[in-house]
């Protein structure tokens, strides 16, 4: 699917300040956390404060995007929030975010859900609305405050964060040349209605799920665009841990240098719907005009969305000084122990609850 002139006008990210290490989690569960962290290639993961959720993270990320792009929020015609941790089962995250940034009432808004790729699916919808001329700006947000059951392997990676992208046709800092998806019914990871924590298929989440969809989708878009890995300066994958994307990159023929900026999970953990978008944001924080980026998201259930992106000259005038650069979130944070983590994540029940 061609981009038909759609591209990224602005972007913003938000990552909570608190961090916990695999070593500290392992200490509580009698597991060698250092080895677990090494195995997953995760040094630390972000932890949201008790007063942070998908709505607050989405709002903060979008406020940065609006300020950086000097965008009039009343010109946003569509706003979609992709997440698997929407605070309400019924009542949209998107309406609260839209109200909080001053985009209401003349816009369409909805919540998306497709495991970790709901944010990239939202970008595709915005591309259609923008390139058809139906709206001027569309906002796609991928944001999560994901949880793993205590002691489960997921607990070492599941974190919180989000990215917001404003899609438009004018003054774009990056042109989306094309997008392509690869979708099948693959039950690798799920959460049933009313369940507190997700379930997963263990090793089944690897070859038939993540690797099949990411590599097939990546190959598909490169074939359609007539490109090879050598045509891209940067590549970003969905990153449930720090190991899977490196292996997927090698399988497709990318080298470490191309993956350098797109890798964020080793320092902030798996932000689920935010992961690929925060990786792309870090690339755009560093990218130069004419550089080409391949993005391949992944959502369990399962599907991949790929984007072929070219950075434009507009990025030279883009105001990176507003908000927090992703690199700063990778380097900084407030370390907490498991007790504080358990308190923040609602794993401790108070009297009367």
């Amino acid at each position, binding site marked *: 699917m061609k981009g038909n002139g759609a591209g990224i006008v602005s972007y913003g990210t938000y990552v*909570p*300040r*608190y961090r916990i290490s695999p070593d500290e989690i392992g200490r509580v569960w009698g597991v060698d956390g250092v080895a677990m962290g090494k195995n997953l290639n995760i040094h630390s993961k972000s932890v949201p*404060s*008790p*007063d*942070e*959720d998908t*709505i*607050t993270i989405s*709002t*903060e990320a979008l*406020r940065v995007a609006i300020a950086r792009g000097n965008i009039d929020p009343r010109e946003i015609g569509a706003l979609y929030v992709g997440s698997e941790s929407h*605070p*309400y089962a019924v009542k949209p995250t998107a309406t*609260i975010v839209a*109200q*909080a940034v*001053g985009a209401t009432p003349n816009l369409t808004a909805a919540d998306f859900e497709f495991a970790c790729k709901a944010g990239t699916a939202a970008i595709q919808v915005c591309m259609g609305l923008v390139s058809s001329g139906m709206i001027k700006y569309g906002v796609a947000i991928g944001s999560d405050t994901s949880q793993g059951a205590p002691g489960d392997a997921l607990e070492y990676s599941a974190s919180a964060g989000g990215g917001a992208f404003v899609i438009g046709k004018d003054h774009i800092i990056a042109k989306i040349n094309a997008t392509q998806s690869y979708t099948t019914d693959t039950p690798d990871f799920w959460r049933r209605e009313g369940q507190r924590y997700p379930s997963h298929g263990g090793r089944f989440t690897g070859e038939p799920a993540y690797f099949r969809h990411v590599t097939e989708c990546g190959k598909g878009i490169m074939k359609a665009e007539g490109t090879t890995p050598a045509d891209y300066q940067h590549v970003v994958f969905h990153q449930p841990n720090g190991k899977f994307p490196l292996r997927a990159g090698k399988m497709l023929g990318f080298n470490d240098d191309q993956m350098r900026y797109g890798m964020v999970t080793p320092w902030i953990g798996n932000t689920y719907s935010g992961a690929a978008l925060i990786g792309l944001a*870090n690339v755009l*924080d*560093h990218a130069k005009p004419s550089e080409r980026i391949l993005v391949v998201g992944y959502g369990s259930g399962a599907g991949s969305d790929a984007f072929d992106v070219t950075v434009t000259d507009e990025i030279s005038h883009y105001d*990176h*000084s507003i*908000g*927090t*650069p*992703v*690199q*700063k979130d990778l380097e900084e944070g*407030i370390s907490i122990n498991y007790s504080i983590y358990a*308190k*923040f994540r*609602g794993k401790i029940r*108070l009297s009367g609850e």
Partner: protein
Amino acid sequence: MSVARFWRETLRRYNLGASKCPECQTVFFPPRSVCPQCTVHRKSMTKMEPCQLSGKGEIFSYTTVYEAADGFEMQVPYVLALVKMAEGPVLTGQVVDVDPKEVHEGMPVKATFRKLREDGDSGVIHYGYKFAIVRSPTASK
């Protein structure tokens, strides 16, 4: 707090919606329909201009809360501050993600969007402004 009452306050809680007197230029938060500063109040009637605070300010005074209000038990100890906004009004708000020992008067802060409280497990979730300390932005390029 009833759903309707909080909903009516959304503009100022979400967006720091304020009002400005066209006569003396004083900014009010929460917004006022008449300026109490001008000697002839009638001058400002129906003329007060809606505006939005920038969210930038500095800590005027603060305290550390150890005995939490209902719904804030998980955040103890937390800092509650009077924040002098750049436009003039002084707001009361929680200062988040900071060690209370780090906080001092004159500390620059910015408004941040946070969950204020929940009406139990099945009620409405209330959102609004709190404050975060301003950290020096280190550009990565």
